[in-house]
């Protein structure tokens, strides 16, 4: 093995690193000395790699160029010079034909005679800047000294650069190289933008799918035996609220709403996990007719340290038609509001209890309330009333209760109108939090 070669791996697959850069930089004898000082083969490879970088930057930029000029001599001079630089060069004499060639999509740059009789530079630029398939191709104008005014108009119309005849080889080389480098950067930017767009579309599609799944878990509004309607408006693509209702047996109707702290994907995932437990009633040693039992079991199963440090609030109630009573409990959730006919202020169905997942072993104490005929229950998350009014004042739960009390009693609640009113109260600004609202007419 030669001392100056990199050591190949046993399979012989690793590329050998030539000592050429060392020689170029130091001369042969100095290179030998430098290489000897870097004793390990890995170190030597790294040394050679670093030395090769400046050389790599000087590499020829390749590309395909189209020269459009009806002057034979100009075409030949340009073509020879540019081919020497490593470009692939083709030429045309006729403007419309050249436009057709550009449409083939294989050219990186076009050099166009500014005064070409069949299509002058300005007309060309007007035409290709309107064409989505051609507008990215840089145009370098070829001009006579006397055509300065034309060149200025073309530059203003979007030409990349210009070259005056007779051509200076060094200037030609530098300008074409500059144009190609800018083109390469723009192409790279376009590729990155396309990648970002694709990823964004994929993400949006997946979020929409997740949102559809979450909505599919929510129960449909019903009319019998109690009309129930709801609205769910997440503040981002995915919300952290979810809710449901179901008959546990002939005399126990469960109703619940949960609100995971924060919103977005993280909140929605926990929300779905918790909702599925409540929907299926699948939890060990839990009496789903008993709010205390449900809250305690949910708190045991969803401790925030095991749920990416997220907790949720939960209001869980069970209505018994035989006794017209609602037994309910709360894990840090705002009270439900019961609008009773003839009573000016809604009754707050509030119960004390720590948010679910907040602390192991938290105690939950259920409350109960009679549900008089004609009563209307509103169950909602804090996003329904934590609003900022136009004057900057925070809207309150009591104000929200007063708003609900004023709704016409003998017709179904128009939830769309109510949501519109909530938005207006929030100074018509986008809601900061998810908004869930359920109403039941007893």
């Amino acid at each position: 093995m030669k001392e100056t070669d990199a050591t190949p791996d046993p399979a012989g697959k690793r590329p050998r690193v030539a000592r050429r850069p060392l020689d170029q930089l130091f001369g042969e004898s100095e290179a030998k000395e430098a290489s000897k000082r870097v004793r390990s083969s890995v170190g030597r490879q790294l040394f050679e790699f670093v030395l090769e970088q400046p050389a790599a930057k000087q590499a020829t930029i390749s590309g395909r160029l189209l020269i459009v000029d009806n002057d034979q001599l100009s075409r030949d001079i340009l073509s020879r010079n540019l081919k020497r630089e490593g470009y692939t060069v083709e030429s045309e004499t006729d403007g419309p034909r050249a436009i057709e060639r550009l449409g083939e999509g294989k050219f990186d740059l076009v050099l166009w005679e500014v005064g070409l009789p069949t299509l002058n530079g300005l007309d060309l630029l007007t035409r290709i800047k309107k064409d989505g398939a051609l507008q990215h191709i840089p145009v370098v104008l070829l001009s006579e000294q006397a055509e300065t005014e034309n060149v200025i108009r073309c530059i203003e119309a979007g030409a990349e650069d210009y070259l005056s005849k007779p051509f200076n080889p060094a200037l030609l080389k530098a300008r074409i190289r500059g144009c190609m480098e800018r083109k390469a950067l723009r192409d790279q930017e376009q590729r990155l933008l396309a990648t970002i767009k694709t990823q964004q579309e994929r993400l949006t599609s997946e979020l929409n799918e997740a949102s559809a799944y979450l909505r599919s878990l929510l129960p449909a509004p019903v009319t019998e035996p109690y009309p129930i309607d709801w609205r769910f408006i997440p503040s981002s693509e995915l919300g952290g609220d979810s809710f449901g209702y179901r008959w546990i047996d002939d005399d126990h109707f469960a109703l619940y709403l949960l609100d995971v702290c924060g919103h977005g994907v993280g909140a929605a995932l926990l929300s779905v996990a918790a909702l599925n437990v409540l929907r299926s009633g699948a939890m060990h040693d839990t009496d789903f007719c008993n709010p205390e039992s449900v809250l305690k079991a949910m708190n045991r199963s969803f401790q925030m340290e095991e749920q990416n440090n997220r907790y949720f609030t939960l209001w869980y109630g069970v209505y018994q038609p035989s006794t017209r009573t609602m037994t309910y409990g709360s894990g840090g959730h705002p009270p439900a509001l019961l609008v009773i006919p003839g009573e000016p202020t809604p009754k707050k169905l509030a119960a004390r209890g720590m948010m679910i997942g907040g602390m192991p072993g938290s105690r939950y104490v259920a409350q109960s309330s009679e549900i008089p005929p004609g009563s209307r229950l509103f169950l909602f998350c804090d996003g329904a009333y934590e609003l900022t009014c136009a004057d900057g004042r925070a809207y309150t739960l009591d104000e929200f209760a007063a708003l609900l009390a004023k709704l016409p009693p003998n017709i179904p609640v128009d939830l769309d109108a109510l949501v519109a009113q909530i938005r207006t109260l929030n100074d018509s600004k986008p809601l900061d939090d998810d908004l869930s609202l359920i109403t039941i007419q007893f």
Partner: protein
Amino acid sequence: MELNLIHSDDTYTHIALVGKLDVGGVGEIENKFLGYTAARKKSAVVDISGVNFLGSMGLRILLDAAKTLNREKKKLILLAPQPLVNEVLDASGIGDVVAIETDPAAAVALAQA
């Protein structure tokens, strides 16, 4: 959202929060807040008289700090909540792990106890 240090010694820390403790507000002060409370492992008085909104993410950092301090047998004391903020605290049940005081001297005495 502002966080101001009022006092800090070997027995307790006293800070004040001012502004809206919502998602944005929490993002602005979370690390500093947990640094002055949970990380110091000293009882902490948090003056929240200047907090005009307490959202779920705000509750989360209060709970985080309180639980960490409780494990160290220390206390998190919330001082002088505005009525609406007090309603949120009350509904959340966080009172099981934090003390709520209206009098600054009583809050400091509790932190030093």
